[in-house]
């Protein structure tokens, strides 16, 4: 049975090869035959490499070059002069940019903490095979599939003090009048409004990665723990958490890098306001680049952020490898 299947597979493969050879025009076949396997491999990946160089690598080096100049994108004909480290000096001595860094750190810390705790909790619950768990998984994943522009706009309506459902729900639960629940207009509440939206949208993503981690733990480890009379609490801390840790760390890395660049949600919800309470680094960068048109200075700012994220990712990947080796 097995050998007849193999014969059939071999025959099908031979026929497919012959058909491909017949279909290939003779001049092309001759040309391809002239290349080594290595050359053909390079030929196939060359377009991707060219695209990567054009879209990622070239702009990076161009931004590094611009960060040392006085270039302004709204004055393309003005003389471009090399001004050394002046742009970096200004960025690193500006109290407003320093404040925007702290705002970014606040967002990154709270969103990652909430997303990891809630995401892992949801994954743990979904992993218990209960009736309808596939339906609930799909339902929980919906926010992640929406466009950030859509999410930003509809949460702006939800946060409206007069007509918003969020204000009504909070008012119903706490008794505070809806007109006092100014989620986007209050200096104290606006940063938390963005944290809530980002957590609502991206917790399913963390849940999905944690769920993959939990599903990869073999059942026999739990069975062995049961035989040793380990309590569920002990099983959770000694088996579940250590074995799902590389996945949790991966989710934190992905969300951390994304949240350092958080722009769309903040821009749609508050635009950096009220005042500059929600002005994260990417909003400050956009203002510098496209409102003040200080292209050279904003390039220096972008490089500072890039180095910060790159350095953090390096540490994180090292930690991840160490956890995996355990």
């Amino acid at each position: 049975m097995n050998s007849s299947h193999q014969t059939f597979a071999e025959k099908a493969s031979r026929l497919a090869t012959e058909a491909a050879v017949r279909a290939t025009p003779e001049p092309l076949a001759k040309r391809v035959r002239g290349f080594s396997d290595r050359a053909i491999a390079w030929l196939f990946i060359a377009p991707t490499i060219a695209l990567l160089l054009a879209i990622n690598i070239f702009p990076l080096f161009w931004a590094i070059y611009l960060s040392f100049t006085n270039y302004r994108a709204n004055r393309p004909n003005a003389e471009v002069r090399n001004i050394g480290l002046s742009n970096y000096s200004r960025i690193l001595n500006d109290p407003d940019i320093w404040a925007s860094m702290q705002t970014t750190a606040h967002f990154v810390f709270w969103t990652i903490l909430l997303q990891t705790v809630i995401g892992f909790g949801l994954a743990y619950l979904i992993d218990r095979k209960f009736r309808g768990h596939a339906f609930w998984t799909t339902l929980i994943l919906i926010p992640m599939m929406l466009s950030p522009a859509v999410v930003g706009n509809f949460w702006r309506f939800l946060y409206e003090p007069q007509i918003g459902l969020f204000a009504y729900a909070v008012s119903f639960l706490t008794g505070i009048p809806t007109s006092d629940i100014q989620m986007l207009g209050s200096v104290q509440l606006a940063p938390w409004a963005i944290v809530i939206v980002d957590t609502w949208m991206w917790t399913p993503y963390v849940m999905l990665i944690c769920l993959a981690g939990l599903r990869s733990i073999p059942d026999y480890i739990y069975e062995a723990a049961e035989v040793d009379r380990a309590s569920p609490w002990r099983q959770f801390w000694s088996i579940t958490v250590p074995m799902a840790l590389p996945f949790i760390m991966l989710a934190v890395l992905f969300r951390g890098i994304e949240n350092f660049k958080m722009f769309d949600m903040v821009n749609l919800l508050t635009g950096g306001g009220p005042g500059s309470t929600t002005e994260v680094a990417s909003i400050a960068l956009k203002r510098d680049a496209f409102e003040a048109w200080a292209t050279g200075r904003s390039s220096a700012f972008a490089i500072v952020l890039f180095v910060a994220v790159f350095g953090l990712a390096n540490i994180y990947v090292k930690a991840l490898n160490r956890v995996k080796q355990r």
Partner: protein
Amino acid sequence: MSDRTLIIPKKRRPFFLRRGPMEALAVLLIALGFLMLFQPFWLVLYTYSFVTLLAGTAMFTVVSKFPE
């Protein structure tokens, strides 16, 4: 005639060419730079954060290529 084999001790690489300690140093620099960049207390720490981060990142990129 004895069949003892002569074990020549392996020459240790100098400290600054060893991967383990240098990688740890680079990670320390990156972590320090990162904290300096986002701390809300002293502007002077923020000013020198980028140099620290850059030094750590460049060092990590180089020393992570050293043999174990």
